[in-house]
């Protein structure tokens, strides 16, 4: 009898040991996969920097694209990217924030709200190239905006709209009810409550969403190719700020353009290794910008979260 219970005990101990072993094994596997994924990101960035290193320098930033790889640069590309981003921010920020305020603060729980919400969720999952087809059919041909900076800016604004809406909604939701009720109790109207109390508290979250949206827009290639941006642009758009009255002009909006990801794609698709080096350099700058913007977004979120004590 004692022998059997000892036997059972030994088997039980072995069983427990085995289970604990698998437990520890899984921790190792999990950590390994996690760090392999993070390592991939590091390798990707470092390799781009290494491959593109010979091309880094002032000349690369101040030269137009060229048939000769060593003379080619990204001047028209980064200027184009900056101007397109300007249009994107100007459109996506007010629209996105306003839509989010409506959904979070104003909307009644009815079918209209449900339809808007389903559409926002669905738009977040629409592949970016579909936005390109939309822009080609709508902006380029129906609205006759052509293959211009404004077409590209509008396209990217629609693309990042769901990101801005979702982030803004989260930021608004994080503001406690008590703050709204205190303002209502003092006779403030709904818009006064929103504009004076809720919005200032959610600035951090809104900014984070906007920066993340822009970091997505800056690297988008497919929709811009679809509207027909050219890679070989050896001139700059009209400068938005002029020397003479009225100092600001908007002719640049309808100028042809190129952007950094298009320039990189053009170089990647050439077999010549010298152009691949250019592609790596452009890619390193592009990836660096994206990582920087994401870093800023994480920092902003962290700062605001720390500063606010409800």
């Amino acid at each position, binding site marked *: 009898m004692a022998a059997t219970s000892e036997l059972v005990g030994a088997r039980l101990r072995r069983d427990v040991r085995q289970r604990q072993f698998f437990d520890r094994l*899984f921790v190792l596997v999990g950590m390994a996969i*996690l760090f392999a994924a993070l390592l991939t990101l590091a390798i990707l960035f470092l390799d*781009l920097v290494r491959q593109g290193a010979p091309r880094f320098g002032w000349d690369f930033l101040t030269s137009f694209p060229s048939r000769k790889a060593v003379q080619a640069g990204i001047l028209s590309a980064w200027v184009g990217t900056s101007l397109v981003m300007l249009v994107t921010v100007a459109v996506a920020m*007010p629209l996105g924030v306003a839509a989010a305020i409506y959904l979070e603060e104003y909307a009644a729980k009815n079918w209209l709200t449900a339809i808007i919400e389903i*559409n926002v969720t*669905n738009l977040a*999952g*629409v*592949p970016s190239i579909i936005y390109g087809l939309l822009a080609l059919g709508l902006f380029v041909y129906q609205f006759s905006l052509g293959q211009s900076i404004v077409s590209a800016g509008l396209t990217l604004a629609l693309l990042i709209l769901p990101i801005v*809406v979702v982030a803004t909604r989260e930021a608004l939701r994080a503001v406690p009810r008590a703050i709204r009720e205190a303002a209502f109790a003092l006779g403030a109207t709904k818009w006064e409550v929103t504009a004076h109390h809720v919005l200032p508290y959610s600035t951090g979250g809104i900014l984070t969403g906007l920066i993340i949206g822009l970091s997505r827009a800056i690297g988008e290639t497919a929709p811009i190719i679809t509207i027909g941006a050219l890679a070989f642009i050896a001139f700059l758009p009209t400068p938005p700020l002029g020397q003479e009255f009225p100092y600001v002009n908007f002719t640049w909006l309808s100028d042809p353009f190129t952007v950094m990801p298009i320039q990189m794609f053009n170089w990647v698709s050439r077999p010549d290794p010298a152009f691949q080096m250019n592609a790596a350099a452009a890619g390193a700058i592009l990836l660096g910008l994206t990582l920087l913007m994401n870093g800023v977004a994480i920092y902003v979120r962290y700062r605001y979260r720390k500063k606010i004590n409800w």
Partner: protein
Amino acid sequence: MLARNSGKMATSMNVQRETVTGEAGRERAQLRRRLQLRRLRDRVVESVLLLSGLVAVFVTAAIVYILVSESLPFFAQVPLREFLTDTMWTPMFDDARFGILPLVAGTLVTTGVALCLAIPCGTVIALYLSEFASHRLRETVKPILELLGAVPTVVYGYFALQMVTPFLQRFIPGLPGFNMLSPGLVIGIMIIPYVASVSEDAMRAVPNTMREGSYAMGATRLQTAVRVVMPGALSGIAAAYILGISRAVGETMVVAVAAGLQPNLTWNPLESAATITAFIVQVSLGDLPHDSIGYQSIFAAGLVLMLTTLVFNIAGFLLTRRFREVY
């Protein structure tokens, strides 16, 4: 900020007290007018906000309208039957054939390869972060992991073409420079954060009492994770996979750069083939006239892509809503 706001509140309170004591009728009328103005402004603002909200609806409607109206002339020339069953896609040749199958096959193969990498890795990472990692590690690692999904896709294309393919060629002799395996793997890396973060959310939504019950029965953490948490989070995990599939299907630049642009009806990931998205890019790079069949064909291809991702997105949406409602 707060000081300014409370100042504003204080003045509006003073104004109210004066009315209550009822001084001059003139003042009261003025106040009423001001209140009406404030209410009017509120109503105007509300309609502006509603219009902005409706933009999302307009955009969806515009996408559907453009895709359908631009591909109608295409389907007037190409019967639907040929479109769905022909095995050749050569819209730019003299002898044009319009069978979408080769493009669909290319899309399915790259997506399949991507899922083979992303689903196991994403699930293990989600389980590890949700059930094993410390709070601190999770909060540090998650934002970094999300960066994998933020890398510009054209950079991933370069990565697939210039780094992953040469690396794979060392192990698979005879692997062509353009193939579907390498971009598939890279897309897999790209969607790991989507899969991991949505499934982790679902796992964290499983109530702690269920875990504690399992521990009390003597289960280890791994047993609890696999037999209690995963079944509990099943619909959320399924949603994560489906959203990952939708991403992979719509991914464009990685395949356009590294998978080749030649439509090829094959299920072998070691061969080169074009996907639906790569074909749209290829046509857009050329200079086709607006009314040519080649131009119209990209809208037909886009319509197929849109419908495919729509089905996945709706399924994912319904599943996530379910897991959020259960507990």
